[in-house]
């Protein structure tokens, strides 16, 4: 196994020892580790919270898979909950499981781990700032997640269980408590939780943008920013503009549910032969408002991972990023187009078909920036000196998997094909390839990559690779098969589809996928063990264990309060690897220029 030296030779810069941790009175524990305003602590708080929810979300997924593979069979462990039903899962419970799996994964894991954890940790470090522009606001953005954590968590224990109308929460199923007797309070808590996630994201995003615009180190122009920062910046932009719409819609739905307004329920609709109130609204209104946020949210969930993967990949290919500006423009393009394609979630929803046609064209166009990014990543690998570290393997697999997720998207962008595959497992396969095989792999890569900066120690490479290998195998086993199920038309969200003649023969395949899913969750134990073991006992990392270029690697590991012990001054972009005529194969952004060296600035 090729490993990377952990002590950097390039570390001989001026530096004083890391700002020493002075012994502090116990009373300060809270302000330092709990209500800290330090972006790094907040980032780690986000990281740990989201990893816990990641585990919960994963377990929920396993329970979902169990029901899909072996419906109405006795569920291990969980079965105790259903003792009165003979250990089987009820369809209400199954509905709740997949709803909460998606909710937890999207709102409590992916978005906060990318923007909250990595955005917080990396933005000031990578742009050379001592902290966020508004540390208090930043702290609040973390603590506003807690009401959401509590609301979502508590909803499992209220009467009727948690929300069970899908993470899309389509009315009138959600606005009328009578429509789904299973979710009374749960759905309301869901909406409240969503509002808090929204407030938290909004606070975070305006703060990130302010920080990136105003607090870059001298010489760090916009086009010298690492891709991670560009991605975070544009993600913040997306959040700032799209999220308020969902917040507004969430309030409307909350009022529909609780006080009987009628924004989303039409007149004359009946539940169990009883009129549901005056109404006057339109269910499609929610869908439009919801997807106006949630489509950009899909990019919120992948752009930061794209940025981080670009940084990791250049570092371990020891090569400049291929096409820096096109990469930036394509992120911006994805974001811009992301706002005008939401209707492709609604092709068969009863939306005006003419509108569907316009959304189809804009959706097709979004393949462009995605293609540009993929080709540029390939271009980055081309001619490199690739080091197979765990972080690199995760990054490469991000590209490999994103290709699959991106290409399968074309199927559903084609409106006639979407008629058939909409709401089938084809969609499930598509977004799991983007969000799990894409984003989650990118996040793991980022954890392995920036772990030394977070904790001052490196993670174990061997077990990291074992973790990667198993995850990679199992994830493809789980999710690739879903494409085939989708081609049969196997619908999502069915507690039991085998009583349909068309889907009767798909049970063995689902069983196979469930085995893979169990393996996938199980092998995360390796990751967890590696993570915590390395936190305390891993080999000490120097400032720059990977010989990387970014500003964060000039700071001590872990950085002290204020991040930098020398004023970072930036002379070049972040991807100057293997510069001809330079002795080292990397040239940090802060390295002063040497006479006679030719660097093409981008």
């Amino acid at each position, binding site marked *: 196994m*090729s490993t990377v030296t952990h002590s950097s030779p390039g570390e001989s810069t001026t530096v004083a020892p890391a700002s020493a941790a002075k012994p502090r009175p116990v009373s300060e524990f809270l302000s330092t580790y709990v209500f800290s305003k330090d972006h790094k602590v907040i980032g780690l708080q986000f990281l740990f919270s989201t990893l816990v929810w990641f585990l919960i979300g994963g377990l929920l997924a396993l329970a979902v898979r169990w029901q899909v593979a072996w419906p109405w069979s006795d569920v291990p462990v969980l079965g105790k909950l259903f003792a009165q039903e003979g250990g089987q899962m009820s*369809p209400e419970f199954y509905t709740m499981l997949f709803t909460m799996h998606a909710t937890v994964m999207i709102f409590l894991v992916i978005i906060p781990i990318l923007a909250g954890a990595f955005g917080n940790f990396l933005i000031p470090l990578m742009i050379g700032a001592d902290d966020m522009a508004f540390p208090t606001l930043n702290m609040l953005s973390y603590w506003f997640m807690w009401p959401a954590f509590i609301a979502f968590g508590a909803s499992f224990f209220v009467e009727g269980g948690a929300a069970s109308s899908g993470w899309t929460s*389509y009315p*009138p*199923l959600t606005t*009328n408590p009578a429509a*789904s007797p299973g979710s009374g309070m749960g759905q309301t808590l869901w909406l409240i939780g969503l509002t808090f996630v929204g407030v938290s994201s909004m606070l975070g995003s305006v703060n990130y943008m302010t920080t990136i615009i105003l607090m870059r180190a001298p010489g760090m122009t916009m086009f010298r920013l690492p891709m991670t920062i560009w991605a975070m910046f544009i993600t913040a932009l997306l959040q700032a503009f799209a999220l308020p719409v969902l917040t507004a819609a969430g309030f409307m739905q909350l009022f529909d549910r609780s006080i009987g307004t009628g924004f989303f329920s*039409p*007149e*004359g*609709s*009946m*539940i169990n032969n009883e009129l*549901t109130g005056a109404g006057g609204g339109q*269910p499609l209104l929610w869908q439009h408002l919801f997807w106006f946020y949630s489509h950009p949210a899909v990019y919120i969930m992948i752009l930061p991972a794209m940025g981080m993967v670009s940084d990791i990949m250049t570092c371990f290919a*020891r*090569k*400049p*990023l*291929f*096409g820096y500006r096109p990469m930036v423009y394509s992120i911006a393009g994805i974001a811009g187009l992301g706002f005008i394609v939401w209707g492709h979630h609604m092709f068969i929803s009863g939306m005006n*078909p003419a509108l569907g*046609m316009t959304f*189809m064209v804009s959706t*097709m166009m979004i393949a462009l920036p995605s*293609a540009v990014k*993929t080709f540029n990543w*390939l*271009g980055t*690998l*081309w*001619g490199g*000196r*690739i080091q*197979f570290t765990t972080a690199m*393997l995760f990054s*490469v697999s991000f*590209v*490999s998997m994103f290709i699959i997720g991106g*290409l*399968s998207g*074309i199927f559903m962008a084609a*409106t*006639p*094909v979407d*008629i058939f595959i909409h*709401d089938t497992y084809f969609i499930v396969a598509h977004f799991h390839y983007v969000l799990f095989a894409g984003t989650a792999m990118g996040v793991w890569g980022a954890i392995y990559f920036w772990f030394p900066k977070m904790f001052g120690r490196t993670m174990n490479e061997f077990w990291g690779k074992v973790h990667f290998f198993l995850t990679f195998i199992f994830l*493809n086993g789980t999710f690739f098969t879903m*494409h*085939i199920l989708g*081609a*049969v*038309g196997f*619908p999502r*969200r*069915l507690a039991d589809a085998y009583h*349909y003649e*068309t889907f009767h023969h798909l049970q063995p395949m689902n069983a196979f996928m469930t085995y893979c899913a169990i393996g996938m969750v199980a092998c995360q134990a390796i990751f967890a063990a590696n993570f915590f073991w390395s936190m305390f006992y891993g080999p000490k990392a120097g400032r720059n264990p990977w010989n990387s270029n970014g500003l964060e690697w000039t700071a001590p590991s872990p950085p002290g309060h204020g991040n930098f012990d020398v004023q970072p001054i930036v002379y070049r972009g972040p991807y100057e690897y*293997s*510069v001809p005529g330079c002795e080292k194969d990397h040239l940090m952004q802060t390295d002063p220029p040497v006479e006679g060296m030719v660097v093409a600035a981008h």
Partner: protein
Amino acid sequence: MRNRLAGIFWSILFLAVPVLGVGVFAIAPSIDVWLPKDVSSHGKEIDSLFYFILALTGIVFIVTEMLLFWFIWKYDAAARGDEKATYIHGSHTLEVIWTIIPAVTMLFLAIYQMNAWADMKMRRPVMKPTVEVVARQFEWRLRYPGPDGDLGTPDDLFLVNDLHVPVDEDILIQLKSMDVLHSFFLPNLRMKQDAVPGMKIPVWFKATETGQYDLVCAELCGWGHYKMKGRITIESREDYDAWLEAKYREQEATQPEPMDEIL
């Protein structure tokens, strides 16, 4: 050659992605895990478009994944000796090429399918509805126009979950929902349309073969979503008329009063 084996190992892992990926798609039809039998006239278009996109994405998939494999195989640090990585920031020409080619392809695809979409969802046949389907938790309520051919008259025929349509004729379904969102999904007819409360949405198709197939609800509609199962029977005009007649008589026998207060 330090650690070349590791590079080979990981490269082959990534090579497995296109190999197995294509393999799965190649094997699936032969074990009958594939698009269900198509018995509609417009389904051909959807299927051929599906195959077209499959071929297109398949090629891109194979090419890009093979390139990925090749690059990490070839540019493994262990394989490159002391050689430095190529110092290059990108290529303007390449960027232009790989922007324009997908752009043209995508635009072609978008325009190419517009007609099919318009046929399926926009150019509604001019005729009276064959049947009205009202979705509700958790069943499909069907309402046939009866002898006079008009819906909403006292001679309407009411059935649940048992949809019959004549073969080789244009069918126009009037789709409604009584309570929440449902989705009218006929896998074998390649037809899917959400039923929205408060809306009356036309759905049309033409069946080409007789037989019995599934009618599935494809939009989450509550805890009983999974059991919202209907059947569609496609039969010849004579059989259809006879069936209608029989059902109508059955209804008259059991239900002496017209049910026009039911919506």
